[in-house]
């Protein structure tokens, strides 16, 4: 979805998908490092979370903070639906993203076993 949305918008020249799995990698998405740090702090409930909230409000805005929190909340749910029901990848996604999954090491995840 990230690759597709970036291609569609045409606004990101150097999308680096390592930014989704490696906190030290620059994704190329504007303010991407700040947003992924916020996501990580929210998922792991770390002490960094309050400061990152303030930073998002300061650098992006308060509506941006609320919307970012919504995305975290949504995907905390979606991953548990996928894991809890053992769903495989959709056929239309499997072939299109196989190279990316290899590159990012996602094939190593335990839930990869749900996709033949």
């Amino acid at each position: 979805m990230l690759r597709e949305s970036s291609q569609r918008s045409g606004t990101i020249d150097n999308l680096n998908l390592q930014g989704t799995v490696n906190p030290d990698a620059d994704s190329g998405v504007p303010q991407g490092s700040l947003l992924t740090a916020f996501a990580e702090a929210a998922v792991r409930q770390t002490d960094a979370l309050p400061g990152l909230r303030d930073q998002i409000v300061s650098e992006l805005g308060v509506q941006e903070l609320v919307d970012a929190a919504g995305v975290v909340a949504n995907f905390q749910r979606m991953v548990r639906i996928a894991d809890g029901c053992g769903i495989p990848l959709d056929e239309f996604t499997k072939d299109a993203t196989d190279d990316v999954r290899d590159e990012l090491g996602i094939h190593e995840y335990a839930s990869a076993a749900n996709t033949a």
Partner: protein
Amino acid sequence: MAFEYTGVDLPIREKTIASQRMSWEMIANPGRWWTGAERVEIARIGRAARDFEAVGSEILPEAAVYSIQKLVVDNANLNREWYDEIMASEGITEDRYVELVAVVVHSFSIDEFHRALGLALEPLPDPVSGEPTRQRPAQAEQRYSWPPIVPKAGLNPGDEMLYGPMEWGANVISALSLIPENVRWLHDLSEGHYLSFAEMRQPDPLRAISRSQIELIAARVSALNECFY
């Protein structure tokens, strides 16, 4: 009324509030296989699990409590063998499991929204009395996921479009469809926290952050959960 956000100086969107209120109502009411009291208890156990509190329950089967805790804190390690063990446990069926997952993940998602923003958690709703309907859709079939799912024809009237052009929907959309109400629930809370299914096909601007920023956050959360899907 729930989700008043009194004293909260944040621009919470109306659709977010509406979808959260609808979720609390869903949880409080009897479902197809659990009573309202049991559904609220499922949410309570899930909430405690997030804080690594392994609380017990006087009204839920032991396997249900264990499933809730695994879903919340150890979802990356769920596998077919575990699912089969749960299905062989007393007090759990495929139908009850699917309904339990739906209550856990939707209540958890709303709690996570609050935690991400540093807000106090909303008190859980008071259960509504009544009996579960105990109705399994006749169209349910075992397909590619662990529990059976239903095709478009098995959804509630008016919800067929949520599967788009696909007879069985995208895998994650149909995953909880053994309880057809879950498909609408999934959509409406998606719209409140992220994007509606229709918005997912539309260009920016959709929210205050760009679609690329949205999907970067989504991908990071998925990676942190080691979710292959």
